[in-house]
């Protein structure tokens, strides 16, 4: 049994393989024009025998890039008569209220490719206007000629309540245009709100041929090399799906990268017994934050890409523009700012010596002493400390501060930006960050973790090893997952229990069928969430229902759960006598993957040393040690910098920790 995870990132393609208890880690440069080439190269360089690989889990940005670069399929959309312009009208609001030259997010299908059919289904699923097949035949003959489109999306009003018309249209289109992929909105997001459902359907239709082509190409290459195992793909919900299952709803392939990182961090922390976590993945341009409860990352039911909404379960990740490359600047009101603009990878921070002149957070670390110029990325990249100093000098003069002090100021501001983003996923949602362990990863996370923890009152930090390959590890750690949703409106009163049980039973049946169709067997573990609100509200509060006692669950209990959730979120909610309704159900079905050994930091060529650090108005000596030199059970005391080949952990004075048997560094305050 040999399992392999290959994650294609913007700069590197990472591979983590696990066979007889041993881990193999490989890192190769990505090939941006052909991600599968980089992935294949990582496999070749790892030296693994293709024929021996049983499971290959893959994460890539193919779907995301197809949308961002507008390189998806040419598609047609069929809509209800009178509502052709739903994608252009959108929600009638502006994201930037003072921008006089405001433009709406550009839809993925042009108006000339949107067609109407006469039909209307009502909110209760009844048919007001019957579909006329002859009209569809005419439409296909006139506009959907063979070769005109690569895929067709169908999104009709109220199809969430009754998909019969959409399915009938799909049948007729398939009959007229054999082989053309056709996607119905009710199969992609069975929820009310026509703009969001149509947008999701169009996204799925747009990326589906791209993903299918990519996976077919990759699979053919793998087969040629002797691979006979199962290829799976990471989804935005943090679960894996066998490649053949991606045709059902390709929208889940968007944003899989950050999701894999969260799954990896969650699994590594779980080895050490930590299950309530705030993960933060700080890279070059941004930081991704996710709240994990009882070993399960939070899910959101909607996200957006390039301004276009996608109604699909995604890990509830908040991104803030604070990374190592974030630019330090002063605005025209004389306020010191960090980000959201970033120097990116090219030219990158001034200290990279690639022509960048703007001061960045990484430059600030070099000046403050918390990044050692000679050992950055394990010494793989030369650092020009003089350029970093030059970049920060002007700002130092403007604020009348020593350049080291200004560097420290900039780092504190970057940390404050991350703290606010963490408050967004915790405090603002009624969660106290002090109840969680902070798990930093990504190249820059471990440098900032302690000060961020202090600002939040967090007592425990868990720093996993090998911060740079957590995402690839996450591909192996993730479950196989299938999510389903259904809008079903029911007022919470006696008798509602039957509706809940019926919805649950139907969704379970569908989930088991879908999993079986893609070759997954076993008994899945199930989560059921009801989207609920007071009658009259427009936004729902997700309420987790206890699946194990679903047969005994009463309306009164469901109401209590809802009121507690509403109160936690909005500070009001125990509205005696107010009517409550369920709007939709969401089911998650998980088939867990096998146990994994921990990541072990590779031995590197790091020399111990000493740095002079300037922080909080103090200048002090700080020893530097290599992470691989610590044995399990070793204790560390701040101030200390711990380096490995992808990141540096900063343990300030007043903090100390232990490396446990899973190679996790657990930090807490010194007594």
């Amino acid at each position, binding site marked *: 049994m040999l399992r392999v995870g290959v994650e294609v990132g913007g700069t590197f393609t990472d591979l983590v393989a696990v066979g007889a208890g041993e881990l193999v880690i490989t890192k190769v440069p990505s090939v941006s024009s052909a991600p599968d080439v980089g992935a294949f190269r990582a496999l070749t360089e790892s030296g693994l025998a293709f024929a021996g690989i049983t499971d290959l889990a893959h994460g890539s940005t193919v779907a995301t890039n197809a949308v961002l670069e507008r390189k998806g399929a040419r598609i047609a959309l069929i809509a209800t008569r009178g509502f052709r312009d739903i994608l252009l*009208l959108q929600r009638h*609001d502006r994201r930037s209220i003072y921008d*006089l030259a405001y433009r709406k997010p550009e839809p993925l299908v042009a*108006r000339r490719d949107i067609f109407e059919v006469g039909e209307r289904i009502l909110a209760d699923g009844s048919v007001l206007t019957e579909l006329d097949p002859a009209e569809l035949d005419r439409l296909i003959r006139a506009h959907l000629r063979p070769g005109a489109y690569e895929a067709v999306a169908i999104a009709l009003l109220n199809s969430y309540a009754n998909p019969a018309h959409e399915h009938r249209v799909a049948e007729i289109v398939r009959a007229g245009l054999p082989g053309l992929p056709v996607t119905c909105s009710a199969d992609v997001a069975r929820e*009310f709100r026509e703009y969001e459902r149509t947008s999701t359907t169009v996204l799925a239709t747009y990326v589906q041929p791209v993903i299918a082509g990519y996976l077919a190409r990759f699979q053919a290459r793998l087969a040629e090399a002797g691979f006979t195992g199962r290829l799976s793909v990471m989804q935005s919900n943090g679960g894996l799906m066998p490649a053949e299952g991606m045709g059902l709803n390709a929208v889940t392939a968007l944003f899989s990268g950050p999701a894999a990182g969260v799954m990896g961090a969650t699994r590594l922390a779980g080895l050490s017994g930590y299950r309530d976590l705030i993960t933060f993945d700080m890279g070059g341009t941004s930081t991704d934050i996710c709240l994990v409860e009882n070993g399960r990352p939070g899910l959101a039911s909607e996200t957006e890409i390039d301004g276009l909404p996608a109604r699909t379960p995604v890990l509830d990740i908040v991104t803030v523009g604070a990374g190592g490359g974030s630019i330090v600047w002063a605005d025209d009101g004389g306020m010191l*700012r960090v980000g959201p603009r970033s120097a990116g990878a090219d030219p990158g921070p001034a200290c990279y010596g690639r022509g960048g002149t703007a001061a960045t957070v990484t430059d600030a670390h070099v000046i403050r002493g918390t990044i050692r110029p000679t050992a950055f990325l394990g010494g793989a990249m030369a650092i020009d400390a003089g350029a970093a100093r030059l970049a920060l000098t002007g700002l130092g003069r403007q604020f009348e501060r020593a350049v080291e002090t200004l560097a420290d100021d900039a780092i504190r*501001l970057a940390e404050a930006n991350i703290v606010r983003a963490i408050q967004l996923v915790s405090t603002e949602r009624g969660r106290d960050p002090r109840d969680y362990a902070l798990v930093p990863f990504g190249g820059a996370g471990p440098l900032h973790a302690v000060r961020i923890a202090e600002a939040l009152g967090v007592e425990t930090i868990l720093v996993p090893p090998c911060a740079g390959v957590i995402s690839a590890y996450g591909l192996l750690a993730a479950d196989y997952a299938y999510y389903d949703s259904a809008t079903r409106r029911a007022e919470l009163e006696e008798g509602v229990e039957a509706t809940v049980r019926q919805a649950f039973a139907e969704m379970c049946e569908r989930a088991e069928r879908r999993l079986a169709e893609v070759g997954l067997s076993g008994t899945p573990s199930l989560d059921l969430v009801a989207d609920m609100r007071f009658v*009259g509200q427009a936004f729902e509060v997700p309420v987790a229902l206890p699946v194990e006692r679903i047969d005994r669950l009463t309306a009164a209990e469901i109401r209590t759960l809802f009121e507690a959730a509403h109160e936690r979120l909005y500070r009001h909610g125990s509205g005696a006598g107010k009517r409550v309704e369920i709007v939709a159900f969401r089911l998650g079905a998980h088939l867990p993957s096998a146990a994994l050994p921990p990541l072990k930091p590779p031995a590197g060529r790091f020399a111990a040393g000493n740095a002079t650090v300037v922080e909080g108005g103090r200048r002090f000596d700080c020893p530097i040690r290599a992470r691989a030199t610590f044995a399990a059970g070793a204790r560390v005391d701040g101030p200390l910098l711990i380096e490995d080949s992808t990141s540096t952990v900063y343990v300030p004075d007043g903090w100390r920790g232990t490396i446990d048997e899973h190679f996790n560094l657990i930090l807490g305050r010194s007594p």
Partner: protein
Amino acid sequence: MRLDPVDYAVISQSLIAAAREMGAKMIRSAFSTIVREARDCSAALMDRDGNVVAQAELIPLQLGPMGTTFRPCAELFPVDTLEAGDFYINNDPFNGGQHLPDIYIFSPIFHGGRVIAFSATTAHHLDLGGGSPGLNAGATDVYQEGLRIPPSRYNLKRDWGPSGNFQRLVTANIRVPDQTIGDIDAQFAANAVGAERVGELCAKYGVDKIEAAMAELIAYSERRVRAALRAIPNGVYRGEDWVDDDGVSDAPLLVKATVTVKDDAIDIDFAGTCPQVARNLNAPFASTVSAALSCVKAVLTSPDIPFNEGVKRPIHVTAPLGSLLNPRPPAPVRARLEASYRVFNAVMKALAQAAPDRVIASGFDTTTVGCFSFLGPDGYRVYLEVFGGGYGASALGDGCDAVDSPLSNCSNTPIEAMDMEYDYIRVVEYALVPDSGGLGRHRGGLGFVRRYAVLKDGVTFALYADRFKGRPDGVFGGASGTLGRCEVLRAGRVIQLKSKDSMTLAKGDIVSLQMGGGAGYGPAAERPAALVERDLADGFVTTLKARAAE
């Protein structure tokens, strides 16, 4: 007290984040479509003197009135006399407010027994009583427009809640109390969130630093606005525009702006504007100030300047008492946005002379409010929606199609949500209107149409809108935009409605509400051929000749 630059940056960003959180939570937990979907509400943190420090930027027109509604409350009930649980409340257009549906609530934030700040929210409430549900289009004075709450102090514990005297008084005077009281509760909850966040900041940094950061944040915004104004050439610039009519006579209502830029300050005067009118088109002075401020902010300053009292300081607005833009009581004011939009257009036209690259052509720039109500056996049902139109084109590109107008930012109600909730009307079409944008090097944004089928006899329809007669003007050679209109199709016959009108509908009627498009920027002859081709292929424009011949 001198603040460390990092402490200042962190505290000020935290205050802004707290105001945003207040706004987001109010919207997501609200009950009426007007707050929850249309987001017609605002939230702010203020210092103890009622100066706005940080505001959630949701609706441009609500820039400003937080301070003007606070002050009369504090004069009557001094801040130092406030006790735990007290709040100020005010919706009076003649005491700093704009129109009755906007209720302002201010909750004091105590620290160490002293008031150190206020959290403040306002929301547009669906129905506050008055002559007809949601909207009394024919009101001839403010008393007919609904419940007037003068600047007051009440106590949450004593006066609110199902047995509180004030809540009972309000409930007894409104038609859909579940929604209105629910929305007021959402305001109180948002205020509590703001108080909690300020409390956390005080605990962490000390109250002195928080108060110093508040003062510095106001000064910071003021500095940045003044820096932007210095970049504009000194001079006196004039612009004017018209509201179609007052709904009674046919005479256009003139709005006239004189904008004087001098160094780092700007003075905007509306002398020459027509006198106040007998119907609800009057704009209380607070609306006039907000509209002028919004235009200056959008045209001349960077969008990332945080809005607060400091933004207002360099901008001085005056309007003659008794005019359309500063009416005397008891003038009706419900539709004040139409005149406010002409304030926006007139100031924009004046600024076009000072900063030609930064202005845009006039857009449809009108608020169209349609209200369908129905009295069934279970009481009143009210559906009210606010629509914009096409934006004016800019130097950078075409105007935005079918979007809310610049002073507002309302979302639409999804058709499927309406299908679930209303059994007396149904939307049968929601579409862009081809050819509705003024042509130009950059064309104006398209308008749109919504058509409703009436499903029951006795549905009441009320409407206020504008630009049924006066088209939006193009700039630098761009063509003008197009008009809006409202028609009722009844038994094969078309009934034209006026821009301020109401009507009792019958089952089978089709109400068609059309919003116009914005005007063009630059001559149409300079439009790149590729864009003309695209417009034709996508059906945004259908017949170039027909348009030119108009």
